[in-house]
């Protein structure tokens, strides 16, 4: 198998950091998505109520 990307010099901090960054982002985006869902739920609820006569 050819490994074409060796010329970019991968072995200097970028692999380890990506593993750490991705783990933190996974948690951050998980909670952000929950927050968005909750916000959206209340937004819809509020909009429905305000539409009532």
């Amino acid at each position, binding site marked *: 198998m050819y490994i*074409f990307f060796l010329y970019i010099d991968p072995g*200097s*901090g*970028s692999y*380890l*950091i*990506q593993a750490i*960054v991705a783990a933190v*982002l*996974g948690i951050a985006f998980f909670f952000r998505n929950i927050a968005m869902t909750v916000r959206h739920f209340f937004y819809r609820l509020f909009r429905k109520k305000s539409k009532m006569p």
Partner: protein
Amino acid sequence: MPVAFTPQPSSYRDPAGFLFHRDGTLYRQVNRSFQPDYDIFLSSGLYDHLRDRHLLISHEEISENLTGRADWYRTLRPEPIPFISYPYEWCFDMLKDAALVTLQAAADAMDKGMMLKDATAYNLQWHQGHLLFLDTLSFERYDERQPWIAYRQFCEQLLAPLALMHYLQWPLSPLFLTYPEGLPLPLVKKMLPLRSRFNLHVYLHLHLHGGLAARENKSEGAPRPFSAKKLRDLLRSLRTAVSSFELDRRSGVWSGYYEEAAQRDDYLEQKLALVDRWSSNIPAVTATDLGANEGRFSELLAAQGKLVVSADFDHYSVNRLYQKIKSDGTANIHPIVLDLAHPSPALGANLEERASFIDRAPKGLVLALALIHHLAIGNNLPFDRIVQLFRALGPSLIVEFIPKSDEKIAAMLQHKKDIYNNYTQEKFLEAFGRSYRIVAQEPVGASGRTLYLMEAHG
């Protein structure tokens, strides 16, 4: 029999292929070793998708082996780009768009089972109203277990300069001249203010990354398995960071220049009418507008169908011109930040990778309006040197002479000793007359300024 071709001096890093010139045309060879990736790039529809969305330069495939080399697989003829500029000449919004295009191309590639292996700012170019990816061979088969090979490059070349400009509110494109491969992240970490740490994305990609990069000698061991979900999160985070960056201070050096100039009787209208009349009779299809400000005259030349390179040393003026041509959909203006007293030099291996501005400039009409006093008095350049610069940029010239009695020069000399005895209209004509013949000359209203149309001798 060996075939005569000239390899492009900047195209030597990637074993997947290389650029070369033959009979005045630029081609790209795809090497046999890259065949599997290149075939998927086409068959997956990624090439068509990126080209149709104006994210990648289009090319024509040639079935002939033009280099005669044994490792040949395909020859491509990319759409020609008449003027190339480099990140050290870009305004903030151009660099920001370059970062966003790179992230978009990476995300789109993932959707088609491929990934972007390079994230260098030099792979993008402003062409016909779009920032395009140039390197067709930057897309390889995606392996879900691998993190993004170009992550560090993206952080060093695109994210870091944008973050610094945003947090310091200072145009810093010239840093690319000192650090052509990207900014060292440990340095970026030191330069960023404390408040940047409170942005999660900036903290992770620059502060944490910079901290770890500083200890790069430490062995990382075997690469940890990654996933597509993780990579998408990474791209999303980078996009969120880049999108949040801004640099647009209204009070640039020239801001309000046109409003102020317009108040001087009908100075601006007269000048526009003169330049329009003269330039429309010049056969040149390209123009270089030196000291372009926010591009009023560049737009005039562009409306005549000329390709215009608009250069100014004020970053904010260039940024506003870039925003304007983007919103107007103007395809033939190429704005760049350039200090004419220090034009971009030749750079890279053997000084051949990146040509100097003078070598790259389109050699057509040169427009130098309200500029000569900045060079002659602001930068102490003798007329002969200015002639040398203008002449190197093209054979036709429209130049404005500003007399010493002008209020702008009086303002310049207020805090400067007047050592400019040679700054007279006679000396100006003498110096320019050695290289040009005067085709037409007209005073601009009652301003005391004179506009000249000149053609180079021979």
